[in-house]
């Protein structure tokens, strides 16, 4: 009993610690611009689209947002196309070096991308893809792929292999068995993996800054403009970058928590 009380108090504090800034951000982004400079802050201010509209109408923001969406879509599609087959292999086959492969995938995330910034830029320049959505999407795919592989392998492990075998006995080829039986059962989890890639790309700022100059994605653009922009602009930008991710992660949390448990 005591422990339960402690646990819930702790959880509530932790949630407040994360959610309160989020709340301030939200009322900052959706109140009239002048209210931001008002102190003390109204906890329940009158809402308005003004700040958000101001930000979205700013020079360069709509195109940057558009680029961000395009990059995120390419990233999600590419990492799903590459990551789901790899996840399938991890889920269904026992091959030599399978565990080592798994660890390698995770460990790529331990590699500091900062170290790569100059080689990355050089490569992009050499390939003539510098300052394009393709260069950014390529790098984002590299960053999100490990997560997509691991999430989809845990999602596909949860679909019994016998079902695929039954489908094969009843007339399906291997790909058809996957498409007709495994895919429908795994689709929520696989969609979560894709969405995760989408949002990681949407939020990624470092590689996007290194690989673009004239045509940045939204985070790179905002980072550049940050020092020279007014407070409401920052609130709106921060809200637009953080909150969708936050809400999405809330809905797909069980797939991500499942990754640790999968064998």
């Amino acid at each position: 009993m005591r422990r339960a009380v402690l646990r819930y108090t702790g959880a509530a504090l932790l949630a407040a610690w994360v959610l309160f800034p989020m709340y301030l951000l939200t009322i900052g982004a959706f109140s009239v611009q002048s209210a931001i400079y008002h102190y003390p802050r109204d906890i329940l201010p009158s809402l308005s689209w003004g700040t958000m509209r101001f930000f979205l109408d700013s020079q360069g923001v709509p195109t940057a947002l558009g680029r961000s969406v395009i990059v995120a879509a390419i990233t999600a599609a590419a990492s799903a196309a590459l990551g789901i087959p790899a996840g399938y292999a991890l889920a269904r086959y026992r091959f030599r070096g399978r565990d080592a492969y798994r660890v390698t995938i995770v460990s790529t995330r331990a590699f500091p991308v900062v170290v790569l910034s100059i080689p990355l830029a050089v490569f992009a320049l050499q390939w003539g893809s510098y300052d394009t959505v393709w260069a950014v999407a390529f790098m984002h795919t590299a960053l999100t792929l490990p997560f997509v592989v691991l999430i989809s392998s845990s999602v596909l492990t949860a679909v019994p292999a016998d079902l695929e075998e039954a489908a094969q006995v009843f007339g399906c080829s291997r790909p058809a068995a996957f498409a007709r039986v495994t895919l429908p059962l795994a689709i929520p989890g696989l969609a979560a993996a894709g969405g995760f890639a989408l949002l990681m790309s949407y939020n990624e700022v470092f590689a996007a800054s290194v690989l673009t100059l004239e045509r940045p994605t939204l985070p790179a653009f905002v980072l550049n403009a940050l020092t020279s922009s007014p407070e409401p602009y920052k609130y709106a930008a921060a809200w637009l970058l953080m909150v969708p991710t936050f809400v999405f992660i809330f809905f797909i949390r069980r797939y991500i928590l499942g990754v640790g448990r999968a064998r």
Partner: protein
Amino acid sequence: MADIVIRAVRKTFDRGRVTAVDSVDLTVADGELFVLLGPSGCGKTTLLRMIAGLEAADRGTIMIGDREVTTLPPRKRDLAMVFQNYAVFPHLTVEQNIAFGLRMKGDAGATEIKEKVRQAAELVDLGGLLGRRPAQLSGGQQQRVAVARALAVSPAVLLMDEPLSNLDALLRLKFRSDLKRIVHELGTTVIYVTHDQVEALSLADRMAVMREGRIVQAGPPLEVYDHPASTFVGGFLGSPPMNFLPVAIDGAVSPGPRSPDAACPDDGPRAMVGPRGDSFPAPEAMRGWCGRELLAGIRGENMDVLSERAPGAVAGKVLVVEPLGAQTLVTVASEDTEVKVLTAPGYTAPPGRDVWLRPAPDKVRWYDPDSGAELTSP
């Protein structure tokens, strides 16, 4: 048309550390209902999965009809399978599950599929549940969906892995006879795996008993039942299992071989049980084993329980009497052996009562005590 010929098939797991199926040779005739029986872990499922193409054989060949299918994928083998753990598709309704194979074949129209699904569902009493999803079904109902899904495609070969294991006794009895009738009508070649020996005896045109990855005996069920080729088969097939009494031919009291010319009485060899000299007649063919110790295999229904000493009867004491309804199962201690005897339904006797067991001489089988193999002639 679709006979199954399996030659020297072998399958190991874990890089050869576990041998699941060990050089199995098997021929199942077209339209035959063949039952594979064996204890848990003897390789029945693995053998079935190799026939289905879900597991690649390490060695050997599998033919279905005139085609060698050893390396063909499952869908090209024209067979259907009922999986031991059902494997019904959870995202499809019962109706869609049963229709799955027909849809994949693609040569039947929508109304024809509907009609076949209805028939198959009717067969396994699932008529009212067509719209449900597997999660809303009991284990036994899911198993019936798996059976209906396999029957619906009218395959040339039907593989069934313990398809009735999860049904209650009454349903099982009904489906057993229905199934036998249906597959014979359709002329389907069936390999049916079970570890229920009553099911094996009642269904099989022919059957095989497996042990540790090998087939130890194959034949018509009553032949296997009457003439178990080894003490393993006799002990596994039948309820109660076959009794094995240590005997010495012609009263060799001390263990070990004696010279064959040690006198067997002229009026025929006898099987001596224990030191008190109880014995029953052995066939003339056993004369060659005079002076040796053997096991006499006697089925429970092939012995009379007598309340007085009689020629050809062996003394014992009653341990337990269990009425089974149609018969009574009596457990008797004879020397150091527990013997299970089936007798008339009304039989009663208090524990400890002295009784005499008289085997029907022509029903006794003889086994080598070391190898467990049946002995027929010297």
